[in-house]
Structures are given as structure tokens and as C-alpha cells.
């Protein structure tokens, strides 16, 4: 229902650690009208310029707390709030090149009252910010 707001404009940045560019990150929202416990966030898939990040390279930060994607199923005491802009980070030595990138995000959510997995998808062209 909020798919078009999943990828947040103007948030694509490289991640720098010391002198190294170690990956990139962007702001993402849930496509859902309520917040959700992190154990029910089954997947946050990030594809940039056609290349899908391996799950092992992805982490998610909600209100200052960072989790590896693989650890989310076991997180029962934190949640992603409705409309909250979380940061999804992808390990990628060297990061992304300057200029515009085609970014796609697909989130899969386990919603208990629905018989099938919920979630959504968004796709936008974002320019890399400094």
C-alpha cells in the first residue's frame, strides 16, 4: 500500500570506513500501515544497476540499532516503526560509482492474518550523494 515510498529519495551514499569505501547505503521504509517486529521482516532485497546484493552483505539500521539481515528472524524486542526511514547498508568494497543508479528494493514481510507473504517492491533512479 506504500510501495512507492519504500525507497527514500536523496539517500543513496557510499559507506566510508577510514580511507576505504566499504559499501553503500540508502533509506528505506516498510510498505505497510503499521510498524512490524523485526522477526517478521523476512527479506530486504537490494538491487542496484541489475546486481542483487547477497543477503550476507546486507544490514538494516532502525533508530540507531544495526542488525545483519540474517539475524532479523531472531530479533523479538525491536521493531521497524510505521513510516520510519531505516537505513539498509550493503557491503561492497569500493562502493558505487558517481552519478545515477537504478535502485530496486523488495521487502518480504510475514503478516499473520494474511495467507501469503506480504511486503512490496519499489524502484527508483537515485543519484549518489556525498
Amino acid at each position: 500500500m506504500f510501495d512507492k515510498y519504500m525507497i527514500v529519495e536523496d539517500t543513496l551514499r557510499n559507506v566510508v570506513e577510514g580511507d576505504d569505501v566499504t559499501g553503500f547505503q540508502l533509506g528505506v521504509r516498510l510498505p505497510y500501515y503499521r510498524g512490524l517486529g523485526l522477526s517478521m521482516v523476512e527479506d530486504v532485497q537490494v538491487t542496484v544497476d541489475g546486481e542483487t546484493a547477497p543477503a550476507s552483505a546486507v544490514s538494516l539500521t532502525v533508530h540507531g540499532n544495526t542488525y545483519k539481515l540474517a539475524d532479523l528472524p531472531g530479533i523479538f524486542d525491536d521493531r521497524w516503526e510505521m513510516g520510519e526511514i531505516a537505513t539498509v547498508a550493503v557491503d561492497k568494497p569500493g562502493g558505487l560509482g558517481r552519478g545515477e543508479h537504478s535502485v530496486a528494493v523488495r521487502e518480504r514481510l510475514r503478516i499473520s492474518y494474511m495467507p501469503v507473504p506480504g511486503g512490496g517492491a519499489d524502484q527508483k533512479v537515485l543519484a549518489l550523494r556525498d
Partner: protein
Amino acid sequence: MLSTAHQIKRGVSFYSYQEECFLKKMSLEDCVSEAATIGALGIEIIPEQSMTGYPDPGEAFYRTWGGWMEKYGTTTVATDLFLDTKRYPGRVMTLDEMTESVRRDLDIAKRMGAKHVRAIINTPPEVMEACASYAEKLGLKLLLEVHAPFHYEHPWVIRHLEVMHRLQSPALGFMPDMGTFVERFPRVMSDRALRDGARPHLVELAVETYNSRGDVHGLMDTFNYMGANPVEQGIARLSTFLTWNDPRVMLEHMPLIHHIQAKFYEMTDEGTEYSIPYDKIIPVLIEGGYNGYLSSEYEGNRHIQDIFEVDSVEQVRRQHRMFERLLGEDEGVAAGASAQGGHSVR
């Protein structure tokens, strides 16, 4: 004055303002203030949507909330709970875990000053039973939301009715969602399908089949054999999620109905809901002696946000002007008197 006396009150669920809240264009206080402005003095809130830090927002949250209720002259009528039965990967919650989850949400409702709690449709009847006396002790009613495509002869709801009739607890009942009374296919949905690439003859077939009470479940095979694309298959599936029932079905269950979610998809410029006939619904509620709230639930945003600026505030205002008309409040105003106690702000 009113030709038929009634005690029906007006309210709004903050579900209605989801687009603006999601995008931080409205704060929670803005929602309360807006509701008060239109005389929708009964507030329904979804803690998991509006309460940062749910289920433990901290003492300050509750104090602030109570302060707003006083400041704006509003009342917390209902809170809506979810039941995350699939919270733990690979297994479904036990009955004990589910009961604990519901009780925690009852506690939250109590602290917010609510009287009614929406039990989401997947709440098992066994959990309702296990929570009834707890709710009763808190002075709360735990009400199963009957949302389309559910209805009172649905096998799941029949199981809930069995528990309610057997227990005779004052704490259990229903919260009907008026989306169970969709008389004609919502235009915002069919228009969106057309914009998304559905072909007109297939959209028309779905709309016509729905509107003529045809076999909507037969649309999936029909569309498949007609070479439907995914958007078209979506509109066929959607037609099985919508339901029309005669609103008079509520009369039989009126002793169990304590709160109404007044779902709507589109208030037209003419001041009526395009698909849900409130002019047929409200007389039934009056006839049945319903004395709770009509709680606005605007759900049109998701269907129009691709091309329109969503204006939930205006949509809810329009619905309340319609409610005033159908409840006879405008007559009261015309006669220079307040038709409903305390509704001085309109």
C-alpha cells in the same frame, strides 16, 4: 429535529490519516486536533501504527495522550490490536502466547482510556474465550472486527459466535467494518487497475459481475482463459475480497455490536460514498438501537496515490458531513440547537 431518536456518536480511526502520518505530514496531535475540529470526538487508534516504541512507549506517552484528550474534548473509544501468530519463525504461537499478546494489548487500551479493543480477524475464538474475564475486569470489551470477506455465516465467525453465545460475557462482541457492505465496485479500484494496465473489457467484466451479484469466484478461471495479465488477475481476485450483504444482517447481532468501523474508499464531490450505501446502513443502526460510534476508516489513499495528492483530511470531513446529514445533526443545527451533546465544534 430528528424524526427518529438515536444515540449514535461520531468518531474517527487514525487509520484514516495513514498517508499523512506515514509521510510525517501530520503528527499524532494533528490527528487528535483534526478529529475534534470536525466533531469526531471518539478516537480510535492503532497503537502499532501511532505509538513509537510499542508496546512500551513510556509513561510520558500516556500522559501526553491523556492531556490531548482533555485539551481537545475527545475520548479514546477504541484501540486496534494485531495478533502476530507468526511472530516466531517456523511455528505458530501457542494459545498461551496468543493470550499473553492480547492481554498486553488490553493493558495498553486501558492505559489509553479506551473502552473497546478491536480483535483482528485472525484472533482464534479460544483466545477470545481465554481473555474475556481479563477484559471484563479491566472494564473493556474485546470486539472481533468483522471485515470483508468475512460475515456472520462465515465458518470462522460461526466459531466465534459459538463462544460468544456460550460465554454470555459482557466483554466479548463484534466491531463490524462497513466494508462488508460494498454495494458497487469501488471506482477508485477499477480506475487504478486501468491506469496500471488492465484492459477495459476485463475491468468491466469484473465490475459488472460484482455489481450484478454474479459469481465473482468464477472470475479467476474466466480471466485466466481470457489471457489476463497480472493486473487483470489482481482485479478479479480483488472482487472476491469485496462483499455486499444487506446491512439488516447486523440486526440479529446488535446485542454484540458495540463499535462500528465506518470504512470508506471515496467520498464524492456530491457528498456520498461511491460504493458503500451509508443511507441504507445508518437507518438500520438506528432501528437496531445502536448507541456507539461511527468511526471513520478511510482506505482510498492506496488506490489513488499514484496520480493524486492524497487528502485524507478532506475525505474524512466529507464523510462526517454525510454522517451529520444521515444522523439528523444538521437539522438540529438548522433549528439552532445542538443535536448531540458536546458536539459544538463542527
